[in-house]
């Protein structure tokens, strides 16, 4: 039985074993094994040429990964917290996302940038935000967020093997909350499709990452009230698997989207726009959104007020179900 962070570790270990071009790099990922222990034991097993402790410089971590990937290596970079990605944003936007396009396919970047995201662990400022929409807005990237240990394993394998850059956001709040039995069989999951975690007929709930936990809890609660929820784990927030979502909403006629990130300009908005364009006549109620608020993420004494919880999701489902 493995936790999500242990499954990340197992996937990294598997790919280090399988492919000599895979190299991990980041701050404190070597002997220390990473602040969340995602790379624990990998330095000892694979050595200093495969697991590199970098200087404390995010632009270096990403920029150096670009150079390595341009030569055919498969760097897997770790940014310690998503809140520290901003010094590397220039590299992500101006190089990572566009090298294939810039060279008309002559140079490609098979690289992964991993980072823990999201709130709920009582951390200092910049350690709790969910800014995935900023990344999803950049053409040329894939942005993937696993929600449980099994998915973290299969999706990380796929991300490392992908011929293009993948941003891999790890929901740190659920790093250790759930354990699953996972075979270390090297089987990757597709990055292009979302997962239907629960079939239902009355309403479609769409979420990703750590919020899947509360979303599934809300679905269970609503079942006792006689509401059948279909629950979709979006997984890849860019590019979005619109057809699976569309099929579900055309069936249920109702939809609530749950995200931890602020509401304005978020992924939930994008999904809602797609559905309003493509499924308007199937909709029996306005599309609901349960999100973080459009304000700065509060420090941890107040973060519980900011983050969507099961009650807020249940309230929104009820509102959507009651719409006349």
């Amino acid at each position: 039985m493995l936790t999500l962070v242990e499954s990340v570790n197992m996937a990294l270990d598997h790919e280090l074993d399988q492919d000599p071009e895979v190299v991990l790099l980041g701050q404190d990922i070597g002997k220390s094994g990473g602040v969340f222990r995602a790379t624990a034991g990998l330095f000892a097993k694979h050595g200093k040429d495969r697991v590199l402790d970098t200087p404390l410089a995010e632009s270096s971590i990403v920029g150096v990964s670009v150079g390595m990937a341009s030569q055919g290596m498969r760097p897997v970079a770790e940014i310690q917290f998503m809140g520290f990605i901003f010094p590397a944003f220039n590299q992500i936007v101006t190089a990572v996302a566009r090298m294939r396009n810039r060279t008309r396919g002559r140079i490609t970047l098979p690289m992964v940038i991993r980072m823990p995201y999201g709130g709920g662990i009582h951390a200092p400022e910049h350690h709790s935000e969910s800014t995935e929409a900023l990344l999803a807005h950049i053409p040329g990237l894939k942005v993937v967020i696993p929600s449980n240990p099994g998915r973290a394993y299969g999706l990380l394998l796929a991300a490392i093997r992908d011929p293009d850059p993948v941003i891999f956001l790890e929901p740190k709040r659920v790093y250790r909350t759930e354990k699953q039995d996972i075979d270390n069989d090297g089987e990757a999951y597709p990055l292009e499709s979302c997962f239907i975690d629960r079939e239902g007929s009355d309403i479609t709930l769409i979420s990703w990452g750590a919020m899947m936990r509360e979303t599934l809890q809300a679905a269970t609660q609503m079942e006792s009230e006689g509401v059948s929820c279909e629950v979709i784990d979006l997984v890849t927030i860019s590019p979005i698997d619109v057809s699976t979502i569309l099929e579900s909403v055309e069936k249920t006629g109702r939809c609530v989207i749950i995200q931890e990130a602020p509401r304005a300009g978020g992924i939930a908005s994008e999904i809602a726009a797609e559905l309003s364009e493509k499924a308007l006549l199937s909709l029996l109620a306005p599309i609901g959104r349960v999100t973080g608020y459009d304000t700065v993420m509060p420090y941890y004494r107040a973060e519980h007020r900011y983050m969507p919880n099961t009650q807020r999701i249940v309230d929104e489902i009820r509102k959507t179900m009651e719409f006349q």
Partner: protein
Amino acid sequence: MPASKKSLLKKHETTSSLLPVADTIANFEIRYVQFLNAQAKIVNELPDFANDNDCLLELYRVMKTLQMFDHKVLLLHRMGKIGTYTGTLGQEAVGAGTASCLRNEDVFVPYYRSATDLYVRGVKLHEILLYWGGDERGSNFDDPRLKHDLPIPISIGTQLLHAAGVATAIKLRKQKDRAVLTMTGDGGTSEGDFYEAINIAGAWNLPMVIVINNNQWALSESNTAQTACQTLAQKAIAGGIEGIQVDGNDVIAVKATTQTALEKARNGGGPTLIEAVTYRLCAHTTIDNMDSYVDKQKYNSAAEQEPLIRLKKLLQTRELLDDSKERELELAIKQEIESEVEQFLQTPPPAPGDMFDYLYASLPERVAAQRDEVIQRENPDADIS
């Protein structure tokens, strides 16, 4: 309001001069390399390649080509045939001197004013024109020997970290005979990525050479607006790597220094930062007007020290070049440029779907629909498969 207190320090006093210092724990110096001064006088014993007449003639041909190319591109721009171009006038020796030291197996990581290097490396002038003519295909170099070389980046300083990454790949793969050459302008040394690059190059002892083309101008800002440093080479000290300054108008000095630094890198000796001091004799780009910020007198004096004049004098002294040979050379270069320009002008625009075709290895369904729309808008009968 309390009265402001006057500083107790006299004008040139430093902190350490006012303290009882126990010891000096580090000393640094920046050396300057020059062989051929502005008067074409040989001021140091020449390196071997400088006694190879063919080598010098080839350097001269390259520099002359880029000088003439610069004028031609400006004309093309005035005629509306090409967009912005970042000229290399006055800085030809930096490009010719550095790139001529590279071997096929080395990797070149350019910046946007690297046209001379790209040309020496084997990139065709029409590819450079395509790039600046608004066509990504200009970075899909024809020459298969260049498959590892990176494309021109516009974002300043980012390339230095890419170079560090390429050097990391070379080091991790234990490839002993390869090194990376990268470049930036003087303005680029104010960027965070510059400091990060020299830092990681030093910390990881990477096989790379960073060349600063110090052409005195970051667009309209002079060096004094950029830094308090006496030299840009001394910034290397902060990264714990070797820094050296060369006369960037002396192609022999640039080549000798780059060659030595690349050899050092290939032999595991680590990175070097080379500051090549030159002067931008053209505007920042074809759309910039330098009259507003350049002192005409200084410009004229810099123009007298530009790199071709002194090399030409040396070649004349050695009886390798006279007026008729010069005309012959110019004619050959003119033909090459005209033919490359023609190839550029004849290149049909990219196909409508082109902007989507290289986004990912396989295009996501959602984006594929947008591609179809673009194609069909342009050609309603198109087969979009």
